């Protein structure tokens, strides 16, 4: 209770800025490790808060607003930022002060957002960040003049070197006023008249304060979608008035949509020429020289593929070492607990349910750590934007953004880090599509199933002299996953998540040295979030699955009979009629149910059914293979497993959502159950229909 009380009494400060302006680095420098991450109610935008501790020991809450270029609310991120600065978000108080982070080396465009914030009459302090880069580029900024022009305090900072942080803190700690200057950008006279009139009406009819009324008046007059979006928020008379204004301005030949942006930039030009002197050297900058190689027709690709190979290698094979170590330690802990506790249900629950479940979560951690280290460096150096620049052409063919490439590639190793990597995609719809199809390309967890099936049923033949049939089967399965992912992405972009035009308007920031602190902090934050959010769900599911596979208890039954008679076993029998057209019997049914948590569980479930110990290890695996090959239907005498069944099973596993951890992560990333449930449904339907077709065609071919 105590912490809640102080939370309310504390001052609320927001920090805002363009993407790539170094906002996160400044946020980290101001708050240290005192951060927490949550979500805004009802949207997928992340809410990050931290605590600033001032010199006198007092504290304030610092809210990290999403990086945004403007307050026009084009994307969910911008909408949240806008709504917070207008005090429209539940459970988030209107900030008492806004810290505006401005990239000094990119002043003109960065000041656009600042002009909007100043208009809102919020007390503001400008952190003129990357001051060193601007100076190096030959741009001299007169801080005092800039401060006078903007009417707010301007503090030069270099976030990456922690310069100016104390001065910034001191400026925030003191009393801060809204800009001392009245609005200076000038609209063309006819627009100004209508705007003033509308502002008056809004103040009168809706009791809005002057700055908010001004903001709304501008939006209503000039934003093309304002009338349709905000229809219900205003009185009908007012809407009529706005419509008449639109007609009037259109008749005068004024481009309503561009007039405000143009007027603001006019003012910015004046501010910049008053406060800066540019001695920019002509010719290529260091960043340009790097780009000549990194986005080169040939070398650009070579380097890109090289980097991607290293990233892929790191999550696919390097991460395996710590993953196996973690898995082994959990097995060891399980064995210790098993030895210490008296036999009984409680022991089973703890060892198989709880420790097994926690183990399943924690073993993913190395992959997530590796991937986010990598992504952190790519983002922080500025290469990520180039990767999207290089890959966009290819991704746009299926309607996706260049930024979808890295998440999809990471998904090849494991869908979980892949889905977490979709954070770099700004467009909500593109991000969702990427998340929805990511599990289709993932394969590492399916590998044990593939390995078992291929070794048991695919003949070791050589095709075309050099290719082995088992190898080709494996490649075919990857290709099937990739094709399915790209086609589904295309389908989703055409139907469900159709967005206007797939815009690709992306800044290419100059290259810079990465900040190790930021990268590590980012990695840490992602890992903790994964453990907390996904962990609880996975733990819950694994306990439920353990229960289903263990109860009701039989007296003196072999593990095989026990599983057969358990709830899971009965469910396996129950779904047999449904999966029969796919060529699966009840044993595979149990395997499918058991592997809802993780695909690789299929192998050990099959092992239990056939009464084999250690199916995971080499000797056990060989004997499981033999059992599968020899198993026949007791009635008809037909083999249960054939090469066709094996292929069908693999196809099913390629396409089905057989991974609760992925579901948990999608639920965490989309902030709700709607999308993960949709994902399970569409993937199951897809898996079922494709497997059905493959099996039926296979049967016909076998007969013919």
């Amino acid at each position, binding site marked *: 209770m105590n912490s809640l009380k102080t939370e309310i009494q504390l001052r609320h400060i927001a920090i805002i800025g363009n993407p790539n302006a170094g906002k996160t680095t400044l946020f980290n420098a101001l708050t240290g490790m005192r951060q927490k991450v949550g979500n805004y109610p009802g949207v997928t935008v992340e809410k990050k808060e931290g605590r600033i501790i001032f010199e006198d020991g007092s504290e304030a809450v610092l809210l990290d607003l999403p990086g945004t270029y403007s307050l026009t609310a084009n994307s969910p991120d911008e909408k949240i930022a806008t709504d917070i600065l207008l005090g429209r978000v539940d459970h988030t108080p209107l900030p008492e002060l806004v810290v505006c982070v401005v990239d000094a*080396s*990119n002043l003109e*465009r960065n000041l656009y957002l600042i002009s909007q914030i100043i208009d809102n009459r919020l007390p503001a302090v400008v952190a003129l960040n990357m001051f060193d880069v601007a100076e190096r580029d030959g741009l001299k900024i007169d801080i005092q003049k800039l401060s006078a022009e903007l009417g707010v305090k301007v503090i030069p900072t270099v976030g990456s070197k922690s310069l100016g942080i104390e001065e910034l803190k001191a400026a925030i700690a003191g009393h801060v006023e809204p800009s001392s200057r009245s609005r200076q950008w000038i609209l063309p006279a006819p627009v100004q008249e209508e705007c003033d009139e509308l502002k008056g009406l809004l103040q009168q009819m809706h009791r809005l304060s002057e700055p908010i009324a001004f903001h709304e008046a501008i939006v209503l007059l000039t934003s093309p979608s304002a009338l349709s979006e905000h229809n219900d928020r205003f009185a009908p008379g007012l809407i009529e008035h706005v419509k008449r204004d639109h007609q009037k301005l259109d008749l005068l030949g004024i481009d309503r949509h561009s007039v405000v942006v*143009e007027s603001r930039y006019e003012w910015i030009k004046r501010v910049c020429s008053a406060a800066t002197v540019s001695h920019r050297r002509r010719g290529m900058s260091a960043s340009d020289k790097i780009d000549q190689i990194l986005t080169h027709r040939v070398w650009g690709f070579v380097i890109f593929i090289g980097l991607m190979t290293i990233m892929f290698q790191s999550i696919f094979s390097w991460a395996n070492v710590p993953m196996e170590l973690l898995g082994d330690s959990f097995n060891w802990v399980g064995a210790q607990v098993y030895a210490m506790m008296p036999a009984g249900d409680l022991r089973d629950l703890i060892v198989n349910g709880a420790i097994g479940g926690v183990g399943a979560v924690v073993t993913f951690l190395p992959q997530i750590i590796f991937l986010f280290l990598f992504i952190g460096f790519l983002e922080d150096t500025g290469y990520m934007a180039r990767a999207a*620049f290089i890959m*966009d052409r290819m991704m746009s063919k299926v309607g996706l953004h260049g930024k979808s490439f890295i998440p999809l590639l990471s998904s090849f190793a494991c869908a979980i880090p892949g889905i977490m990597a979709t954070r770099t995609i700004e467009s909500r719809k593109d991000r969702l599509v990427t998340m929805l199809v990511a599990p289709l390309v993932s394969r590492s967890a399916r590998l044990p199933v593939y390995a078992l099936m291929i070794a048991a049923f695919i003949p070791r033949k050589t095709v075309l002299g050099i290719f082995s049939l088992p190898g080709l089967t494996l490649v075919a399965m990857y290709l099937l996953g990739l094709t399915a992912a790209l086609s589904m992405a295309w389908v989703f972009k055409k139907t469900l998540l159709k967005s*206007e035009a797939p815009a690709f308007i992306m800044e290419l*920031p100059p290259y810079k040295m990465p900040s190790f602190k930021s990268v590590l902090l980012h990695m840490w934050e992602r890992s903790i979030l994964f453990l907390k959010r996904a962990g609880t769900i996975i733990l819950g599911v694994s306990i439920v699955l353990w229960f289903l596979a263990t109860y009701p208890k039989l007296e003196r039954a072999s593990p095989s009979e026990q599983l057969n008679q358990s709830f899971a076993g009965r469910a396996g029998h129950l779904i047999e009629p449904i999966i029969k057209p796919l060529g699966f019997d009840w044993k595979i049914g149990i395997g499918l149910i058991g592997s809802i948590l993780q695909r690789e569980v299929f192998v050990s479930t099959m092992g239990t059914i056939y009464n084999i110990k250690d199916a995971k290890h080499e000797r056990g695996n060989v004997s499981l293979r033999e059992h599968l090959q020899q198993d026949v239907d007791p009635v008809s005498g037909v083999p249960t497993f054939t090469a066709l069944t094996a292929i069908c099973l693999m196809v099913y596993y390629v396409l089905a959502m057989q991974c609760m951890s992925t579901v948990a992560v999608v639920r965490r990333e989309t902030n709700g159950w709607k999308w993960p449930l949709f994902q399970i449904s569409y993937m199951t339907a897809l898996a079922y229909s494709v497997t059905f077709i493959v099996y039926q065609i296979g049967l016909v071919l076998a007969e013919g």
Partner: protein
Amino acid sequence: MILSKVTLNTLIPGERCVIERIESGTISVRQRLLEMGLTKGTNVELIRFAPMGDPIEISVRGYRLSLRRVEAESVIVSKNSHQ
């Protein structure tokens, strides 16, 4: 030397031009291009094409922006041509 009006995507790397207006394109694309600083009278230089020919990279207001050819097609610019 005459002033000719073309669309931004027809420039070659190294060529400079001045923004006239943003014509077609969806409302949100248009809005975003304007806010990113592509307003009337702004100087723009085409820097390069991506390795696969699309998107393009331009220099505007002292920073680098990439956009697809379809988006660049909606930007009308004027350039000095020497014919």
